[in-house]
């Protein structure tokens, strides 16, 4: 993972200095605080940071609107209080209660998640909000018939923490404890973000369907995000309970949830340093506004509104020196007409055209589709369709709009199971599998209307494709175990190799560019690169040249051929441009109303009466 110094941002170059500075500040901060009041604020700030980072995993990375988050914070705190106080006369040591409370929160988070994960967006928010309310009502009312939660009075007089012979009582000692816990959370979250987990979560946030179709097990990953968030909340809750020496239902109410969300949104969803800064800012700000009494909350709200209006991407969003600046080619002054914006790209002629053909069509059937039918509530999008794809064949599918071409791709890639019929790939039945399982089996696709992960970099977009080929779990990632390190290096190498197929259009300074800043044609290329990164052997390209001009279309045509001739991919392509179809296809399949109306070589299909009528129009050869 060696990179040029020029590729790194200012922060990365001066990383060690920044770490040392932060360490020094944290080491001496508790000692120089003016009084206990400020020490308390300092400790609380550390707690808020942890809490915000936990929510950042759920809402920031994975984009799940978890409104029960504060309840998990409460579960951690209450479990801690019950296990180390006189309430039930249980007095477990801190080193046992801390993980127990965190795991309890995680377990309940997991349970709640597994019942509500199928819900999306607002619906998930409503269900989790209901859960949070139930939790609070339980806290308030479970003091009868058996006193479990202590009702309104909560639980107080917790055991003092004893750690390695020290008893933690003084505010200074608590400050150190909290901030050490916070640093652990910060490291864990940063490492998660830069791993296959982080990329998987962010892919889900950006486009769930595309994430699934690129091999991310979205249901499972969302559940894990929910659980990790709950784990961090529970962990923070335990420390909070001890810090406050008591727990009350009011500590875990709606206002706390709103504040944590403000911190995460202010910091920028998914941005770890940003969220830390947001948490620090919103923990300290109220203290400065205290003297304004009634105006305090108003000022607080006003500052939030102004900040969000000015920097919707969060306070750390994009400071020039923190992230590489995005560039658009300047105005072209040469006066030569160019159909593409990629002014600085020169295709190396030899690469594409003269390479000797290493692979050609084989005879073995790799994809066998039999009697596949898709019935959308009475509308037959695909109707008892059957065909075979042979090894290293390029098959083009043509047909009028609404003929069922994209539906066919959706069926093969598992986005929905066929109403009838079977799809067999390499001897294995793939109909009925989930999209991520189909990708793992070796079939990857692109989308007609571009579904990139727009705020991820070019490199990360392609890396998501490697998700299904890697296995590192959360422990391996958080502790940087060999499995994770090896896989990351392998991922980096494999992805760069794929991207280099596209030359300067996707490599160099573009590696770090967010997908949304790419030109339209480059976004199409990146979609293909992402599909290639999955190690699939069968590629399904949905209108790869749509929206490209003749020059770019020609290049794309050559590229598709190149993928087969030089790398031996089997390719199914949906295409409307007939010159593309003519140039690349071994076989052409024409669909209309979900049925096969013709199959054969380009010439056979193009001369078919039915095809001309349904698709080509009276002029058999189009103008171009």
């Amino acid at each position, binding site marked *: 993972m060696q990179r040029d110094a020029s590729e790194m941002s200012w922060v990365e170059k001066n990383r060690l200095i920044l770490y040392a500075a932060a360490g020094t500040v944290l080491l001496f901060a508790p000692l120089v605080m003016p009084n206990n009041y400020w020490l308390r604020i300092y400790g609380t700030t550390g707690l808020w940071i942890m809490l915000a980072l936990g929510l950042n995993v759920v809402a920031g990375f994975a984009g799940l609107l978890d409104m029960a988050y504060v309840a998990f914070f409460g579960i951690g705190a209450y479990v801690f209080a019950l296990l180390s106080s006189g309430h039930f006369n249980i007095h477990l040591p801190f080193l046992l209660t801390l993980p127990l409370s965190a795991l309890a929160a995680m377990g309940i988070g997991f349970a709640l998640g597994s019942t509500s994960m199928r819900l999306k967006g607002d619906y998930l928010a409503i269900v989790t909000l209901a859960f949070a309310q139930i939790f609070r009502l339980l806290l308030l009312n479970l003091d009868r018939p058996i006193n479990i939660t202590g009702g309104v009075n909560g639980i107080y007089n917790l055991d003092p923490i004893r750690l390695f012979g020290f008893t933690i009582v003084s505010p200074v000692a608590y400050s150190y404890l909290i901030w050490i816990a916070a640093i652990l959370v910060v490291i864990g979250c940063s490492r998660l973000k830069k791993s296959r987990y982080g990329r998987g979560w962010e892919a889900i946030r950006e486009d769930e369907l595309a994430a699934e179709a690129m091999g991310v097990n979205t249901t499972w990953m969302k559940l894990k995000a929910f659980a990790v968030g709950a784990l961090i909340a529970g962990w923070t809750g335990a420390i909070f309970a001890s810090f406050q020496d008591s727990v009350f239902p009011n500590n875990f109410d709606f206002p706390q949830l709103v504040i944590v969300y403000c911190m995460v949104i202010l910091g920028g969803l998914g941005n770890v340093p940003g969220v830390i800064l947001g948490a620090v800012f919103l923990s300290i700000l109220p203290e400065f506004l205290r003297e304004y009494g009634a105006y305090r909350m108003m000022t607080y709200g006003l500052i939030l509104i102004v900040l969000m209006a000015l920097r919707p991407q969060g306070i750390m969003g994009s400071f020039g020196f923190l992230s590489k600046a995005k560039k*658009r*080619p*300047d*105005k*072209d002054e040469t*006066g*030569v*007409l*160019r*159909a*593409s*914006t990629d*002014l600085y790209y020169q295709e190396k002629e030899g690469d594409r055209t003269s390479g000797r053909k290493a692979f050609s069509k084989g005879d073995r059937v790799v994809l066998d589709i039999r009697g596949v039918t898709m019935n959308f509530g009475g*509308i037959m999008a695909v109707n008892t369709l059957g065909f075979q794809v042979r090894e290293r064949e390029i098959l083009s599918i*043509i*047909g*009028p*709009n*609404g003929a069922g071409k994209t539906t066919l791709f959706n069926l093969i890639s598992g986005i929905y199971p066929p109403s009838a019929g079977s799809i067999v790939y390499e001897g294995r039945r793939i109909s009925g599998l989930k999209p991520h399982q189909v990708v793992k089996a070796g079939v990857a696709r692109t989308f*007609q*209307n571009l579904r990139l992960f727009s705020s991820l970099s070019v490199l990360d977009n392609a890396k998501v494709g490697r998700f299904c080929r890697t296995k590192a779990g959360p422990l391996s990632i958080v502790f940087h175990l060999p499995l994770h390190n090896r896989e990351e290096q392998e991922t980096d190498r494999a992805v760069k190799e794929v991207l280099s197929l596209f030359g300067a259009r996707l490599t160099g300074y573009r590696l770090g560019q967010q997908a949304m800043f790419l*030109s*339209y*044609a480059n976004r199409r290329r990146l979609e293909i690169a992402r599909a290639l990164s999955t190690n699939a052997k069968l590629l399904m390209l949905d*209108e790869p040249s*749509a*929206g*490209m*001009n*003749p*020059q*770019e*279309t*020609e290049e794309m045509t050559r590229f598709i051929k190149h993928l087969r001739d030089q790398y031996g991919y089997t390719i199914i392509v949906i295409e*409307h441009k*007939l*010159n593309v179809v*003519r140039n690349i296809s071994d076989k052409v399949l024409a669909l209309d109303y979900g049925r096969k109306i013709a199959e054969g070589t380009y010439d056979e299909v193009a001369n078919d009466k039915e095809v001309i009528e*349904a*698709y*080509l*129009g009276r*002029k058999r050869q*189009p*103008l*171009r």
Partner: protein
Amino acid sequence: MKNQPILQLKNVDTFYGAIQVLYDINVEIYDGELICLLGGNASGKSTTLKTILGVCRVKKGSVTLAGERIDGKPTQYIVSKGVAIVPENRRIFPRLTVLENMEMGAYLRTDSDRVKSDIEKMLELFPQLRERLHKPGVYLSGGEQQMLAMARALLSNPKILLMDEPSMGLAPVLVDRQFHLIQEVNKRGTAIFVVEQNANMALSIANRGYVLQTGSIVLTDTAQNLLDNPMMKKAYLGGGAS
């Protein structure tokens, strides 16, 4: 007829944040004309349309509609003054029926009797829509969606119709039909400004064309001259490439 342009962009600069996208754009469209705007990806074609509609702010220069300055005005005002758009990828309202989609096009109109007869006219122009009148828009095929988007735009009674890549993702037979329809609508008296990648097709029906490259207009001429221009052939028309 050619006294005052119905739509005029004069020395227009447009920015996205700090990035300049359009440089000194000059476009004039007269009543009843069919004009096309050609250019590669990210050359600023869609931005030009967004600038006319007031979605992107004009930083320098002016946009006038039949003599009235419309730059800086809100989009809904500009639409009420007679600009309509058929957006890229159609963007019909998926859960509204075909009829409701069309009625949305007439949202700003108050003459409900005329709207009814105009809808009837649209159904004559696009007979396929009549069969689907009460179906949600999402069930339409690509070609039908394109017709619906045109009908919706025309129902605002525009002085000028903007079209963003109408041929994108359509089967060849539909592309022909689509351009035929554009011509038909134009013949009925609506000025049309169409943005296209499919330069051959667009020029074959247009009166004049403009060519955009990295945000500047580098060429403007009659459609026939553009078709014959050797530089155009090389860069956009793919002359002899197939």
